[in-house]
């Protein structure tokens, strides 16, 4: 029992054995989940397809993707609610793939919170400790501690129904954290909250994670949420991992069309490879882009709208920048910026969306104006597909 309170500092603390190379908090190797298809002759559905993933100790890690991408199934396999069809799931080096949930050192914050409606807030939070046989005094102490942590003082005797959505969310969090899990799993925990509360909770959750130092695995379909909170993000689609990296890396250097498109707004330009650092767009203009594709093959280039700038075409060209000429088709006023839809002069199928700030000194255009769209070659990334 006492080892739990020692573990208070989190597995990242001094409890890790010395000398040994520390195992990843969560390590998935070749994890696959197939569900039997609906109907008798139906093919099994592959929800998660041979995922390899290592989550470091103390990380705030997000699984991001559209609904049905396999992120929740992955989380449920880590929690133990589903067993993998194949593959290995390790938590701090220990294989748990086929262990039932109650034998795993992880806790979950459910999307629906799953607070026990027949118990008070305090009883809900104490549940896990009671199941582990923690003695009464210790339980009371730790429940009080975690209630302080999530600022629910004075609400201990309430029933979940008597709390607001945000408060229920905190109870769910406290109920999991009180067990000092080695890894905390969160399944879209902010999904049921309204926008304003969600933003507040994002900040609080991130601060909380930093304070307790526990590894968070966070499932969400909200890219903004993932970008704001995570140390690293794994983008999933169709049961596969498309890209794993820091929010910045994923945003700046998307590797696939899906990632570029799913996260943020993006422009996809198609070009023909000239050599390892040059390609030619459909309208013939050359651009600088790093690619390992063969000469003459097609390459898709992603550039974020805010990485583009508009200039009067009469200005002399800056040789450090790549550019395309076109005409403003439509503009949308956003307040702090304006969004321009530009059609390329030589290629009417090439439409580019440019986000230009509204600060003083920045040039402005109206529909029909001829413009030069330009960007730093380093802000363009070549996609794999």
């Amino acid at each position: 029992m006492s080892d739990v309170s020692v573990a208070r500092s989190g597995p990242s603390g001094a409890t890790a054995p010395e000398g040994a190379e520390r195992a990843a908090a969560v390590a998935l190797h070749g994890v696959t989940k197939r569900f039997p298809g609906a109907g008798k002759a139906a093919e099994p559905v592959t929800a998660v397809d041979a995922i390899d993933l290592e989550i470091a100790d103390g990380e705030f890690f997000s699984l991001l993707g559209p609904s049905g991408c396999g992120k929740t199934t992955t989380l449920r396999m880590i929690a133990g609610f589903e067993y993998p069809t194949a593959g290995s799931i390790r938590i701090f080096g220990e294989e748990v793939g086929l262990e039932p949930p109650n034998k795993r050192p992880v806790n979950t914050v459910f999307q629906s919170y799953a607070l026990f409606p027949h118990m008070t807030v305090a009883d809900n939070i104490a549940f896990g400790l009671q199941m582990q046989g923690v003695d009464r005094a210790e339980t009371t102490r730790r429940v009080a501690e975690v209630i302080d942590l999530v600022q629910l003082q004075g609400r201990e005797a309430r029933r979940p129904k008597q709390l607001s959505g945000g408060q229920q969310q905190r109870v769910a969090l406290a109920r999991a954290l009180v067990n000092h899990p080695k890894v905390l799993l969160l399944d879209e925990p902010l999904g049921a909250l309204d926008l304003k509360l969600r933003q507040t909770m994002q900040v609080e959750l991130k601060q909380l994670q930093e304070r307790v130092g526990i590894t968070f695995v966070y499932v969400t379909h909200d890219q903004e949420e993932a970008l704001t909170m995570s140390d690293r993000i794994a983008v999933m689609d169709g049961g596969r991992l498309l890209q794993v990296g820091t929010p910045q890396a994923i945003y700046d250097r998307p590797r696939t069309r899906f990632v570029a498109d799913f996260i943020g707004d993006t422009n996809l330009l198609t070009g023909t490879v000239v050599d390892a650092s040059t390609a030619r767009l459909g309208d013939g203009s050359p651009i600088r882009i790093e690619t390992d594709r063969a000469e003459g093959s097609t390459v898709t280039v992603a550039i974020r709208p805010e990485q583009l700038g508009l200039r009067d075409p009469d200005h002399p060209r800056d040789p450090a920048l790549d550019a395309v000429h076109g005409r403003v088709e439509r503009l949308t006023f956003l307040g702090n910026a304006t969004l321009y839809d530009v059609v390329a002069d030589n290629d009417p199928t090439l439409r580019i969306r440019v986000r230009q700030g509204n600060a003083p000194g920045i040039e402005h255009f109206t529909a029909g104006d001829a413009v030069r769209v330009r960007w730093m070659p380093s802000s363009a990334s070549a996609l794999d597909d």
Partner: protein
Amino acid sequence: MSTTVPPPDVQPDFDTSPPVHGAGLERDAEKAASRRGFLVGLPSYAYLVAFFATPLLIVVVYSFASRSVRGATVLTDWNLRSYGRLTDSLVLTIAWRSLWIATLTTLVCLLIAYPFAYYLSTRPARIRAVLLVLVMIPFWSNFLVRTYAWRMLLGGDGPFTRLLEAVGIDGVQLLFTPTGVMVGLVYGYLPFMILPLYAALERLDHSLVEAARDLYASGWQAFWKVTWPLSRPGVIAGSILVFIPSFGAYVTPEILGGRGSTMLGSYIARQFIGSASDWPFGSALSVAILVVMMIAATAYFRAGGKNL
């Protein structure tokens, strides 16, 4: 009891080729769960097999047996004679009577219950809850006693006959006639009609009717084009829930019916209780009625009914 899993298990040289569950390992875990579920249900299923499925089978077996001259059942001579007797004119008369009494009962229930359920569903929530409780109380009260009460009401010196006499209609007998039986059946099974109808109408989004009115439908048009079609599952469910027990009624015709109002239920009972016993024939009748019920019940489930 240990609290959390022991500290990170560290191997001297970290395993780079972790054990991969072969396909099927997780199936063992799932199979264990399936087995548990089966075991949880097993006592109940064993009970139902012993005291429901087996009796059902025995009725079917008996329906092929013969009756000895002295009324005993002979389990050596197997034949279809009992089924042949299903087309006897007496049986057909009784079956026909059961059918039209059950059908009329269903229609009368529908006619009374639909406007009632509609009225109920348009009341404010608080009143609605109270009114529904008032419907439930007789529904849960003892059926036999409720039916018996009508014997006093319909009797020769009961209020209904007196009322008819007062308006100048003399000599109308209600008790011990098919009409009396029908009144009893309607009374007994009306809640079976009200509740599904109410459920269907209450679920109905009232803004749909408003949308219809907005699109130039008159009140009646809105009802016929929107409310009625959307409440049809309730109509079907209620009709079948009333029809099934009415068709097989036994208690009501025994208490409120007379010689000319024997229904299938009582006719079956007569084959087992009393002197004229003929168990194989009674069994064949039971099997026949069961088949009719199964067809009706299948229609009910098709219509989207779930429990009662």
